[in-house]
């Protein structure tokens, strides 16, 4: 009796597997174009990654078709982990056969997956990964945001302009975003006559920053620059205030996230960061004016402000779709060529054209300050190329 049951179950399982396989084939028919979304939804950067995905999903809702076919988003989770990123990227190009890829939040995972996209000749568009190494030497990787050398320069200039002379730099060991931005800030800060009094690292998932911050305090730092993931940011800010540190605390684009204010509370007041986009910018592009109210409705109050990474996610999709339209085909090489020929395309975060590395030529960063528990626009900083 038991054997009979087992064999029946086996037959059923096989039948089910076939049905599922068949179902997939029907869906994969030629009337859709697949675009891969390569983002962290879990792990250290899960928070930022999901915000970026929100922007991409909204863009897909606004522009659901290209070349007369429906665009289907294939979302994979790279789990904020370089090894997982390779698996996720391979799945996109080999199993899902996507024609292009958007992502990822977090430079490290983008760098790790770069070769896979290049070898498969699938153009990839990073939305908010700011480390130069993402696109360097990879003709298939493009990027919609500004770069860390630029961001680091802007922040160092801002600190010096505030009369700060002694900086403590705190970065995350092994994180390409954090160490990259930290070193570009250091270079510019020194060039402008400042002094780096403490240069310290911490490891992923570290929660105790008391000793590092005590060092920074005893070194007499008047500005603390700590580019890091959202997980560490709130803790650094909170612990600095508990140690009685009154220095200006600064971070990069990742810090524009509500959860930092939620974690750090009052301690977050006065924290300064740079970012890509400001929803209240009056000189915004036409696309941005359309995007802001539309996306607010899409979010339904999930985020009190529009995260800059969501705007960039939207733009990445927008730029790729435009390239596919101009290429008139879904061939990777053709899309790549169309991308390099993009000129003056007005997205949400500014106008798009790419330099020889595939980086969007942007010369504009927004500086924000946390005030009254909110991110407030402080100034826009542009640095001539």
């Amino acid at each position: 009796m038991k054997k009979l049951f087992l064999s029946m179950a086996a037959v059923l399982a096989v039948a089910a597997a076939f049905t599922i396989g068949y179902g997939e084939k029907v869906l994969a028919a030629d009337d859709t174009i697949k675009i891969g979304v390569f983002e962290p939804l879990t792990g250290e950067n899960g928070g930022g990654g999901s915000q970026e995905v929100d922007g991409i999903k909204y863009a897909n809702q606004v522009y659901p078709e290209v070349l007369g076919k429906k665009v289907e988003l294939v979302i994979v989770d790279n789990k904020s982990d370089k090894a997982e990123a390779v698996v996720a990227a391979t799945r996109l190009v080999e199993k899902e056969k996507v024609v292009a890829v958007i992502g990822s939040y977090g430079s490290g995972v983008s760098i790790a997956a770069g070769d896979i996209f290049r070898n498969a000749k699938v153009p990839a568009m990073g939305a908010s990964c700011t480390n130069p190494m993402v696109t360097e030497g990879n003709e298939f990787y493009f990027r919609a945001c500004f770069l860390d050398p630029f961001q680091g320069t802007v922040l160092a200039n801002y600190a010096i302009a505030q009369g700060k002379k002694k900086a403590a730099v705190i970065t995350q060991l092994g994180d390409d975003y954090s160490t990259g931005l930290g070193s570009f800030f250091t270079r510019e800060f020194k060039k402008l006559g400042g002094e780096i009094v403490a240069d310290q690292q911490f490891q992923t998932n570290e929660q105790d920053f008391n000793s590092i911050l005590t060092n920074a305090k005893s070194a007499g730092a008047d500005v603390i620059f700590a580019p890091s993931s959202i997980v560490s940011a709130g803790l650094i800010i909170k612990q600095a205030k508990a140690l009685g540190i009154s220095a200006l605390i600064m971070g990069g684009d990742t810090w524009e996230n509500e959860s930092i204010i939620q974690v750090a509370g009052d301690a977050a007041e006065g924290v300064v960061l740079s970012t890509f986009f400001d929803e209240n910018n009056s000189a915004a592009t036409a696309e941005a004016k359309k995007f802001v109210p539309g996306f607010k409705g899409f979010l339904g109050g999930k985020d009190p402000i529009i995260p800059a990474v969501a705007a960039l996610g939207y733009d990445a999709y927008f730029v790729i779709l435009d390239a596919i339209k101009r290429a008139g085909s879904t061939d990777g090489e053709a899309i790549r060529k169309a991308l390099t020929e993009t000129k003056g395309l007005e997205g949400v975060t500014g106008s798009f054209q790419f330099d020889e590395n595939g980086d969007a030529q942007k010369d504009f960063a927004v500086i924000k300050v946390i005030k009254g528990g909110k991110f407030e626009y402080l100034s826009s900083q542009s640095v001539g190329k």
Partner: protein
Amino acid sequence: MSSGIFIQHLINGLSLGSLYALIAIGYTMVYGILLLINFAHGDVFMMAGYFMMVTMAGMGLPVYLSIPLVLLMTVLLGMLLERSAYKPLRDAPRMSIMISAIGASYLLENLAIYIFTGVPKGYPNIPFLTKVVQFGSVSFQLVTVVTPIITVFLLLALMFLVHRTKMGMAMRAVSKDYETARLMGIKINRVISTTFGIGSFLAAIGSILWGAKYPSIFPLVGVMPGLKCFIAAVFGGIGNIPGAVLGGLILGITEPMLIAFFPKMTGYRDAFAFALLIIMLIVKPTGLLGEKTTDKV
């Protein structure tokens, strides 16, 4: 280094060390009785943080109601974990229970990601603990000095329990010889359940103090403390309760000192903890206060 800065580092270390100690006791007790490293202990600690968030921020309970509730929920979670993941494997090879423990750890982490997402959440503010005190150039939150006091108190209470009560006697008997204890009529399931309950209770206390000091909570929040406290327990001699406290204190104080005296080495903090573990295992495998055990033939 000025004395003010040194005292600051020392206070930071003492408080971190007492937190490590609280959590390390949970590892050491379970090991002492079941010879099992409860890999899910750090995740029970993490869940306690989310319980606090749900009761205080979510349900809006006042602090004096939510703390007992959190303690109760965590104890129940620990006992439930033991019931479902370890009890069915009571007579299975030890390796199976170990694998079950790893599975339980991943299950809890992913459950938390599923329910609460990966975005870090703020830990509810407990004003009594988070008040900032300032003495000259030394500045700290009240929780920093409260933690060692609570740890010492709980250690004494635990020692009383183990050495002066009937349940403690049963625990010692089970840890000495599990089979014989069972034959002598000791209800080992109840003893083991109680052990998990106590371990989880300490993890919950540790989690509340941890949350006051490091007020961010995310699904992987228990991973690093879990690992460090496991190291502390082995360092002090796994299975030995005062040893776990001593190991926790030593690890917690040396880590910040390493950073204080070698600012260039800050990134090697975790490597230092693991190096300490390796050296201990080579030099004195039973740990600082561990006893030499002989296998029964």
